[in-house]
Every structure is written in C-alpha cells, then in structure tokens.
C-alpha cells in the first residue's frame, strides 16, 4: 500500500535560541554544526532547519536512530527530541498511518491507555485540531480495541499529531540539556582536577555556550599516573557535552617542590593555588581563552574562603568564573551524578592539592601574607618552566 509509506526522522526542539533577535541565525548555525559533528561519528545524517525546529534525517535505513537521538539530546541548545513518522497526504493517509503507528506502541502483555494531541499549522487541512484528535483516536480504537483504551488524563502514552506541510506522528519526547550551543559563548580555560567540582563547573559553562579547554596540574610521582588517567577519563565524559576538548597537562612537580621548600607551610596551599592560576592565565592567553573557570565554592575548603579567593584572583589578569560559588555541595554532587562524572570523580587517587597540605592552612590570608610567602621566589622563571612543560591531549 503506497499510501502507508513514511520516513522516520528525529525532530529536535530548540529553546532559548529562539528568543534571540538578530543573532539568532548565528546561534542556529552553530547548533546545526554541533549536532552534525556529533552525528558524523555514528553514521550518516543531514540536519535541516524549519522555523524553530531541526529535522535530523538519516540518509538510509541503516542508521541507528536511538543512538542518534541520544547524541542529539546531549547537545546544548536542544530542549527535547522525538523520533517521528513523517509523511505527506490528507486525512485518509493520516488515519491509516496513525493506526500503524499506534500498533508499534502496544504492549502484548497488557492493555495500555492512550490519548491523542494534535496541532494544525496548515490551516488548509479540513479538520480543526480537536477534530483531528478525535478522528485519529476513533480510528486507533476501532483498529486495536483489544490492545488499547482511551484515558485523556493519565495515559500510558500520547500520540502527538502535527499537521504542517507534512504530517508528523510521535509518542516519545526525550529531554535535552537546554542551554546554548557550545561555541556561541566565547572560549574559557577550565582548571580540571580529579575532584567532583571542576567537571561540573566545566559542564555549567559549556551549557552557556562556552567552548572549553582544560588544564590539569600533574605532580608525578606525588600524584600517580592513575590520577592523571582519572582526569582524562573525566574530560572524556565532558566531551559528550562540550564536543572536542583539549586537556593541557602541566608538569607541576618541580614547582611544587620549590614552593614546598620556600613557603611557610600554612601558606603553601594559597601559594600553590596562585601559581596554578598564574600558569593557567598565561596558558589561556596563549590559546586565546578569555576567562578561567574553576570549581570553587565559597567556604568549601581552606583555599576557598573569600580572602583566599581574593588572593588568588589578584594574580590573574582576566576574569575567573566560578559557577559553583553559591552551590551547596549536595547540589553539586547531584549535578555530577546527572552528567555522569560522579563515579569517576570519587575514585581515590591523590590530586596535587592534597599532597602537601599543612595541618592548619591559613584560611584568611591577606594579599601581603601571600606576597611575603612568595618573596624571593622566581615566579616568572617557574611559570615559564611550567609553560614549557605542557603535554596536550586532544579528546
């Protein structure tokens, strides 16, 4: 029966982007690019835009739509996505397709309830939206009386009908990450440790469209190569949201030894943080990132008191974004679980912040405390040395 032909495609709905004014085109083009790049890894698809929606069309029936939809909903800027049946035709075609579609939603083990929701964009279509719902519902019930029942309040599934220049049917709506497409929000450098917080901070900035690079300070043998692998594993998880991610691994051992030999133990944590920020800022300039991002949260540990943050910011000639600054640790943990980094973050390897920790680090350091602790330290030399010992891993 030729009238029963349809194509199965993915419909992706856009959120905040559609509120943009003159820039909207730029955001949309970036989103299409991001989705296309992601889909290229898993198969052969085109991404086509109509109004505030994107259509992801497989090039042939060999493509894995389920995998594709998982990719699409992990791209920032997509609010939700659905696998849809799409076809042309009038009421007769719609009813026949709707019955066939409903049949795919049935469960042989029990009777399911359903309802129909319709939207008519094409005002030439002879029925109104409520009339479409009721005709489609009747046709489905007439064809599958033993398998389905109608429940308009709490149905097991909903058949959505959209009549525009083509007709679409779908039942499943998969939630997306929302946010803005990566690449529309500038370029930042994320200080990535092995902990719970920094991957979440990176995720949050990427969700606002920021393109990321990451920097990790490795102090082998004080930190093990397993700690390094863990950081790379975290970065790999982040790529599901950020797309390509370069991790810059700084060999930090000699600096850590120099600081340890030079600084009073209670200032070591702050001075170490300041060195990391200096190196990160110089690296950021080199790769043209305009901001540093950290996972710090106010008051969480000794190096994250207001005074400590002020002291570290003082050495950085660019803004430092701290998206977790006002979050409770439990909320950060929830986010980490949701984005899939938590289980990796809690693997018990030392990160370089925990190797040389004084029993009682200074929690309220002043700028002059920090300057004094660093007196006589060859800061420029150490920074240069660190910059010359960076390994890049592109994920």
């Amino acid at each position: 029966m030729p009238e029963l032909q349809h194509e199965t495609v993915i419909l992706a709905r856009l959120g905040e982007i559609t509120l943009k004014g003159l820039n909207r085109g730029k955001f949309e083009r970036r989103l299409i690019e991001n989705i296309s790049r992601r889909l290229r890894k898993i198969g052969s698809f085109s991404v086509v835009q109509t109004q505030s929606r994107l259509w992801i069309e497989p090039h042939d029936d060999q493509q894995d739509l389920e995998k594709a939809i998982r990719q699409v909903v992990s791209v920032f800027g997509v609010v939700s996505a659905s696998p849809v049946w799409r076809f042309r035709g009038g009421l007769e075609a719609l009813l026949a397709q709707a019955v066939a579609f409903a049949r795919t939603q049935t469960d042989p083990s029990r009777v399911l309830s359903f309802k129909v929701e319709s939207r008519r964009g094409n005002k030439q279509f002879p029925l109104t939206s409520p009339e479409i719902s009721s005709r489609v519902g009747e046709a489905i019930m007439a064809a599958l009386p033993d398998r389905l029942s109608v429940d308009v309040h709490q149905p097991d599934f909903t058949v959505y009908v959209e009549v525009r220049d083509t007709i679409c049917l779908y039942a499943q709506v998969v939630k997306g990450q929302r946010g803005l497409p990566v690449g529309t929000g500038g370029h930042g450098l994320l200080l990535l440790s092995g902990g719970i917080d920094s991957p979440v901070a990176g995720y949050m900035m990427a969700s606002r469209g920021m393109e990321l690079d990451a920097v990790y300070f490795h102090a082998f043998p004080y930190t093990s190569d397993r700690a390094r692998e863990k950081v790379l594993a975290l970065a790999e998880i982040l790529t599901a949201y950020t797309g390509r991610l370069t991790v810059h691994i700084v060999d930090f051992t000699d600096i850590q030894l120099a600081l340890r030999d030079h600084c009073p133990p209670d200032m070591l944590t702050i001075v170490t943080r300041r060195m990391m920020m200096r190196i990160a800022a110089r690296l950021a300039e080199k790769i043209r990132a305009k901001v540093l991002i950290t996972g710090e949260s106010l008051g969480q540990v000794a190096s994250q008191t207001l005074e400590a943050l002020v002291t570290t910011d003082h050495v950085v000639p660019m803004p430092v974004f701290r998206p977790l600054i006002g979050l409770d640790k439990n909320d950060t943990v929830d986010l980490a679980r949701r984005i899939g980094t938590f289980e990796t973050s809690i693997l018990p390897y030392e990160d370089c912040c925990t190797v040389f920790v004084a029993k009682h680090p200074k929690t309220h350091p002043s700028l002059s405390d920090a300057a004094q602790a660093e007196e006589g330290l060859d800061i420029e030399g150490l920074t240069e040395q660190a910059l010359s010992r960076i390994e890049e891993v592109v994920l």
Partner: protein
Amino acid sequence: MSIYLDHTASTRPTPAVLETYGRQLAEVYANPSSPHQAGRDAEKSLLDSRKRIAKHLGCAPDSLILTSGGSESINMALKGCLLRSSRLPRRLLISQGEHAAVWETAAWLETQGCKVERLPLTGQGVVDLDALDRALREPAGLISLILVNNETGAVNDPARIVALRDRLSPKTPIHLDAVQAWGKIPITFDASGVDLLSGSGHKLGAPKGIGWLLRHPRCRLDALVHGGGQQKGYRSGTENPPLAAALAAALDEAIPGTEALARTARSYSALLLAELDAAGTRYTVLSPPTRAWPILAVSFAGLRGETLVNALSAESIYIASGSACSSRRGKGNRVLTAMGFDAATVLGAVRISFARTNTTDEIHSAARAINTAWRRLARP
C-alpha cells in the same frame, strides 16, 4: 626490563606452571564428574594433582579443599565454623594484624550476631599472647590468626597458640590464615596442630583463581558454596583439573625451595638496607628482626609510600605501599598503627618483597633508584 619486587601481592607463574597449565587447558577439558572416559581421565588428573598438593602441604588428600583463592578459603573457615549449629559460642578471636579477608569477614559476622574480639599486637607485629591467654578464659567458637603478616612478614608462633588453646579451651578450633606463609616459612599441616589452614596459589607461582583450605578431620565445617556436592560436599562447583595441575606444578618448585628463598631473601634484604645506609637515605625498618624473610616493610623519612611507589614505577621497578588491597583506599594502615608506629611513619611505609627469581643486580638497581628518589622527593 622491569624489576618486580612485589611478590607478596602476586607472583609470576614459572615456565613449568605455564607449560602444565597450557597443556592441560587444551587436553583435560572434560568434567571430572562425568562418567565417560574423558571425564574419568580428567578425574584421574585431578586426583593425581590433589595428591601432590596434599603432600607438599603436609596433609592427607582428604583434608584438602580446593577453592577459588585465599579470600574464599578464609570466608569458608570463618563462616563455616561460626554459623553452623554447634555447642561452642559464636565468639571469634582474631588480632589487629589480620588481612582484610579475615577483618571484613569478622565484621560481617558481627552483623549476623557473632561476637568478635580483636586482640592487640606486640611491637613485633605478632598477636599478644597474654591477651590471647585472657581471651581464652571464656569459651570461643574459633581462633583465627594470620600466620605470616602480609605487610610486615611478622610470624605468629603456631606452637604457642596451639598450646594455649589446648590448655585453656581445647574444643576451640584454630584457623591460621597462611596465605603468605607457604613457600616463605617451613610449615606442614599435620604437624601444626591447627584445625584449619588457608592458602592461595598465586602467591607462589600458580595462576590466580585457585586456593585451598586444609581441614583436620576433627573440625566440623559447613560449606559456603552449595551445589553438585563436589569435594565431598565441602565445596560444590565443577572441579578444575588444569588449575589444580598448575598449582601442583607451582608447589613442586615453591615448597622444596622454601629454605633457599629464605636465605636469598635475607641476603637481598641486608644488601638493600646496606645500600640505603651507604647513601645516607633515612628509613625505619617496620618488619620485626625475625620474620618471613621475603617480606620487608620499610618507612622512608619525609616521603609518602605512595609517592615512592609511583617514582619507582616510572623506572619499571615495582614495589607496594602498605598492602596492595588497601593502598587505594587512602586510609591509614591498621596493622602498622597497631604495632605502635606513628602516623608519619605509617604514611611513609612501603613493602618490598623478594622471590628467588630476583637477582643481586636487581637489588642494586632498586636501591640506587630508591636513593635517587629519596634525595629528590623526600622532605624529612
């Protein structure tokens, strides 16, 4: 070429073991419980291996229960003794020096209503016999003690433990966790006077996946694994003739080599420490002066054990920090702390363990690498 000095964690199978295991995997694949000829051939191979294993361990073949490894053997000894109905109370005596396999099983048994007493260690890393004496004034369902400590090499004295038990609580069975003892100190089950003795193949040249529990006929024990009734119902599950053959082959070399290994390890240990002294590297030996010689625990001043392990690993020299099973948990070290060492000493602890395949050159190289790492990384 790498230098492997972590034989307490695991060992490399010897060529004879590899040859036996590979050949048997290919040829002896039938189920030894099957009645056909191939099954009977497999059974014959298994019985032959069991006989050889029993001979090396100093017991009758009937006393031998083959298991999947040390942890299963220990679980079976503790749970099989304490959870069965018996006239003895559900009271377990262990020491602070136990491996996690005993320590955590005991903690679980507590949740099942058993009472567990954790006896202190002396500064020499062995159980405090006075404390055991006091504890045995009340009846107990089982005494379980580690024979050779996996972190320090400290050796408990079975004769004195058995004598105490015989005098104070003759019905209480004794289990010794001998996982680190076989091949490192001379030991025979029948002469030991204990009721249960566990062991693990991969600690002395067999592949991972096989261990044993030796049971004296007087000791009543419930099975942990139920099923087809293999091994007289003590341990169900299809028997594994190739693995048993590999274990027999490993014991063929390890048990007769016990004394030679002790001599070699003792000289390696002395050689290593002498080289550290000569370079001015500061350290404390944590192992007691008398010990199972293949195990040497040392703490370096101002250098975390983990850091030294990482540094040596970069030079393809492999040692352990604390116990390999607990080093990734970031906790302090229970055994070393129970011996009275302070937190800084415990943090600096590493374990170096020798095998007869190590060479004097390897010990020199390892000592040189430790001296270099200590000079660069330690901040005493």
